[in-house]
């Protein structure tokens, strides 16, 4: 008699995987990136040390900031904890809570997280934090049409908009995985992830120049445990986006097909391996293309939008 996980346990394990391993993936990426630039770079586990250090420091709140400033990072962290319940991290069959929200639902929760951080930044009087939050909101809106069209594509292919079914549709046969609509949607989502994790087109994720920051700029005023939550949260958001990219679109293989303990546990190293692969790819891309000027960001968005629209058109035209 094989030992099995209860569905609730697998679901908890999904969240736990994301929470514990997100800093590792983030640390790996910055390490690799430093190597590409000829630096020795931080240790892979540096992000954990940073978070630990920040938790032992005191929290400073700007003078005129209210409770929103404190609540923002906490709400965001909660949002990023919620999303792994909805997406296929370890199992290829929908877990009970997976029906709580579809791709749009997950997207809304992620946006809520981003929004609460932006709100917390707007609460301060600091110009750079406000600049960051206004930029993040503006450009977040520009990438939204592409995300919508990707969702439509998933909906037309599977008849639902649950991420589990898109992954299952791609796994069904080689022909289904090579469907142009699927490939286009995967590439469009790839571009969306590139943009949302602050790689290309304009951001320097680990820079110290405030003018080069979009998402990171929002956190300039936070300190101590709140800043730790923000850093942890942003690494989790990155890993969540990787999960969707890998396990829904690009490579939905290697997930556990049953509730047996062995396959479910085995799915963790496989998933992390895939995530590190994607991270490596992103680091290579980030280092081999020059950043765009800020207002050229629309060109990048237009490319993602083009792919997403073509995906849906090919589907409507027939076959696809």
């Amino acid at each position, binding site marked *: 008699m094989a030992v099995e996980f209860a569905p609730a346990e697998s679901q908890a394990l999904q969240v736990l995987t994301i929470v514990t391993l997100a800093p590792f993936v983030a640390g790996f990426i910055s390490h690799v990136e430093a190597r590409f630039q000829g630096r020795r770079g931080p240790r892979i586990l540096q992000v954990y040390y940073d978070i630990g250090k920040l938790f032992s420091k005191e929290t400073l709140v700007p003078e005129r900031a209210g409770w929103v400033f404190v609540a923002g990072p906490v709400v965001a962290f909660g949002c990023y904890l919620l999303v792994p319940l909805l997406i296929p991290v370890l199992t290829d069959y929908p877990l009970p809570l997976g029906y709580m929200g579809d791709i749009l639902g997950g997207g809304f929760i992620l946006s809520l997280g981003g929004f609460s951080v932006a709100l917390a930044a707007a609460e301060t009087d600091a110009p750079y934090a406000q600049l960051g939050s206004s930029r993040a909101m503006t450009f977040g809106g520009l990438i939204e049409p592409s995300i919508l069209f990707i969702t439509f594509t998933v909906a037309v292919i599977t008849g639902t908009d649950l991420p589990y079914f898109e992954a299952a549709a791609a796994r069904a*046969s080689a*022909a289904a995985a090579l469907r*142009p609509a699927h490939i286009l949607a995967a590439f469009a989502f790839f571009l969306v992830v590139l943009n949302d994790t602050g790689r290309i087109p304009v951001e320097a994720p680990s820079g110290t120049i405030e003018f080069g920051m979009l998402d990171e700029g929002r956190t300039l005023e936070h300190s101590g445990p709140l800043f730790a939550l923000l850093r942890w949260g942003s690494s989790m958001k990155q890993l969540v986006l990787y999960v969707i990219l890998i396990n829904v679109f690009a490579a939905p293989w290697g997930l556990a097909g049953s509730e047996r303990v062995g396959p479910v546990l085995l799915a963790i190293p496989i998933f992390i391996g895939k995530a590190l692969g994607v991270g490596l790819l992103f680091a290579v891309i980030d280092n081999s293309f020059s950043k765009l000027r800020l207002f050229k960001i629309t*060109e990048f968005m237009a490319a993602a939008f083009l792919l997403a*629209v*073509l995906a849906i058109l090919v589907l409507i035209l*027939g076959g*696809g």
Partner: protein
Amino acid sequence: MSGTVPISVFNDGAEVLTLLVLLTEFAMLRAPLSRSQVRLYAFQSLVVTALAALVAVNHGLNDLYVIAGLTFVLKVVLVPGIILRLLREAGVELAGSHRLGVATMVLLAIVVSIFGFFTVGSMPFHSSSLPTSALALAVAEILVAFLIVVLRSDVVSQAVGFFSLENGVSVASLVVASGLPLVVETAFLFDLVVAVVVFGVLMRVHHRRTDTLSTLVLNRLKG
């Protein structure tokens, strides 16, 4: 809608290749340098060659092998080589001859290709050699090629736009009449050679008279 057409790896492959042709056309529309445009054209021709070879293998059409070979020699090697050489001789590098912003151009091109998609998609048409959507994609590609000619204001872009338009026509002819007699297909390719010669002469004359490749100077009166 989806589900009515059987999904097969051949159809997928063919459709991905046609999509690549369309996407390269979009890339040409936004490419800032003439040189990169010409390289994109060479890549697009390579994809067309691959598509022709794929259809030839799948349907056992021997004529198509010859066409694919001719396409490769002419469109991937010769034509881009000639244009690149002309560019080198001219010694002017035009960067950014866009008449509109890149994002606007891409959105406009999306609208135009949607128009192409739906006009062709509503035709009751079934091809035996390629999925029907390939025809719609080819027509969209032709329309975007028109946009390149309209929206880019330098001679090289306009020539490349015209040549890539011919690529779209090739794809369309693969869908509609892949069994076309070899003589007719060769005549089409010969047309392309004539166009290259004409455009080459045009580029040279234009460059000698105006010292630039831009067409924006053409509305000035000459004394």
